[in-house]
């Protein structure tokens, strides 16, 4: 196929928008896995949970999905802190987090998914909001609001988190916990409390990511599985705990997928994206911006 510039620019824009959404989905993993070393593979299941809550509120009360997700943030925060408490007592305290912790989240992923199936069935659910069906057009490119709105929300969320992590005391403590727990406790900050807060925040982001997901595509309980690979890929590519690195990685993955789909055929998009990850891992395990 020839290489029209317009098509290329459109593919690039689509990739960036998609990448923005991927970043929102990944940020929770960046905190839990990248900073805290907690391999929360159940994260996508919590995102789907967020989607379903947005769906119910939209269906019953006509609430905007993003508004709903902000309203339920505290709920997810407490859910996260509860899960961390269990995780800490059962695994971290005993020094068994690596293998057992992984299995624990694997089980959690299953349980959440199956509970959603039992409650909602496996039909695809979707939300309605004014902006979902509108598209902005400029000259030769077009911006579907369905992708633009999640992109903007995602950027706001990420900017907010980045500010929190680098400027506030708690945020800095969270970053420090990843490096040296002992030093942190010498500074009179309880590392467990800090980790609990950080993990709770990571789960809270799932509420927002869930709302964005259901704006972009219809959702059924096992859709989350599609994201497990992607989010970890992005997190690792970005160099673990670094949020700017993660955003770059998410955009890259989005752009790679989008360009491959446009020019080479969509069926190769996953192989190209994950092949990219494999090569990065093999050549530069620390990721693009290693911490």
């Amino acid at each position, binding site marked *: 196929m020839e290489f029209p510039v317009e098509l290329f620019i459109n593919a690039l824009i689509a990739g960036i928008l998609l990448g923005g959404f991927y970043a929102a989905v990944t940020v929770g993993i960046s905190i839990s896995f990248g900073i805290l070393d907690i391999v929360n593979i159940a994260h996508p299941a919590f995102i789907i949970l967020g989607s379903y809550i947005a769906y119910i509120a939209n269906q019953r009360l006509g609430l905007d999905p993003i508004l709903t997700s902000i309203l339920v943030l505290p709920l997810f925060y407490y859910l996260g802190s509860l899960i961390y408490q269990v995780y800490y007592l059962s695994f971290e305290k005993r020094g068994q987090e690596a293998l057992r912790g992984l299995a624990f989240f694997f089980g959690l992923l299953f349980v959440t998914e199956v509970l959603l199936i039992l409650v909602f*069935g496996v039909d695809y659910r979707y939300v309605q909001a004014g902006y979902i069906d509108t598209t902005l057009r400029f000259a030769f490119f077009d911006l579907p609001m369905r992708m633009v709105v999640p992109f903007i929300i995602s950027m706001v969320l990420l900017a907010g988190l980045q500010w929190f992590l680098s400027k506030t005391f708690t945020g800095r403590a969270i970053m420090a916990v990843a490096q040296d727990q002992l030093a942190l406790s010498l500074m009179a900050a309880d590392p467990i409390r800090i980790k609990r807060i950080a993990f709770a925040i990571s789960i809270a982001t799932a509420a927002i990511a869930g709302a964005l997901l259901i704006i972009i595509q219809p959702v059924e309980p096992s859709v989350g599985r599609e994201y497990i690979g992607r989010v970890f890929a992005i997190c690792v590519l970005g160099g673990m705990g670094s949020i700017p690195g993660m955003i770059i990685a998410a955009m890259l993955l989005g752009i790679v997928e989008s360009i491959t789909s*446009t020019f080479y055929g969509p069926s190769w998009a996953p192989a190209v994206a994950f092949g990219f990850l494999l090569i990065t891992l093999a050549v530069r395990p620390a990721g693009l911006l290693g911490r």
Partner: protein
Amino acid sequence: MSTLTVLFRQMTFALAFLAAMFTAGSAMAADPIKIGLSMALTGGLAGNGKAALLAIQMWADDVNAKGGLLGRKVQIVHYDDQSNPSTVPSLYTKLIDLDKVDLVVSPYGTNLIAPAMPVVMQKGMTMMSLFGVGVNKQFDYDRYFQIMPLGVDSGYAIPNAFFEVVKAMNPMPKTVAITGADAEFGKISTDAARDIAKKMGLKIVYDRSYPPASVDFAPIARAIQSANPEVVFIAGYPIDSVGLFRAINEVGLKAKLVGGGSAGPQFAAVKAQLGPMLNNALGYETYVPSEKMNFPGIQDFLKRYQDKAAAQGIDPLGFYVPPFIYAAMEIVGQAVEKTKSLDQKALAKTMHENSFPTIVGDIRFAKNGEWTQPRMLMVQYKGIEGNGVDQFRDPARYTVLYPPAFKSGDVIVPYR
């Protein structure tokens, strides 16, 4: 204390659990005619599976209300195959060997029917098959019968209906884009579409498949747009059909005809979700509310189905799958009554030799177990406003373009 007590508690629980299971399996009377099947009640195909099971149970209730078959009540024995093909061989063995069912019906869909075939063939059972495409092409089993109205050359029915519409256009389009999901149904349909398009002398300007789990379909829609086809044939699954149609609208794809082969628009939820995006799109259907399709009994069935479906949270319209499943069971029942026995060979013979009146019309099977004639409808949707489900009960929303026997209007171009 803790771990040990917990272990014991667990073990007693497990034992009680196992005991309960074994007794549950053996306490069945030999009297009723047992019909066995596995159905996707969880997993990806569960939406259709639940609707199909409801139709099967409605049939069993109807038959039992009239006194059963051969004077015996009918009992449905079913398991959940979780939409997972690897559960199917053992489930059908259990149905036939342990539950001693008298008749088997297939699971829903090609992926799950195929693994049941070797078992069913080995046991010599006659099988009514539910919505499988081209399964018997591989097995060539003379006791296989399939209810979806695809006709002898089953993979070609849907693309063929689409291209018949293209052929009838004046002037006839010269370029076509073909795209579909990278999975069994999408692949069979796009392969057939490619073949037909070549034979018609159409120029294929875009021909690529996509993974069903794609998130953003805009790149595909744009690539198609830049190839500038006159008609676009799409063969996807529900979720990606929604994504692709949405992207096509967002990108502002200009083509005369769009759609044709997607599994998706048949279902009420997808119809509602697409809403006005469906206007002027083409889709295949097995049944639409139309004067020409008013077969005896179908209105009554749909009304009863819809009452029950609302309560169970499954497809509220039920045009696509349920009437045909009910018809499949009607055929099984009629064949048993005609044969006056449950002998599998005799049953297969009866089913091959007779025509069966059902709520979806008279059905006759060809040698390979498919309908003798395909009856897939190619429909153009129109006049859809908003995302309500109820508007799709209105016959005016559908123009049947093909086959000629059910044609209800002329094609409208362009799509946008």
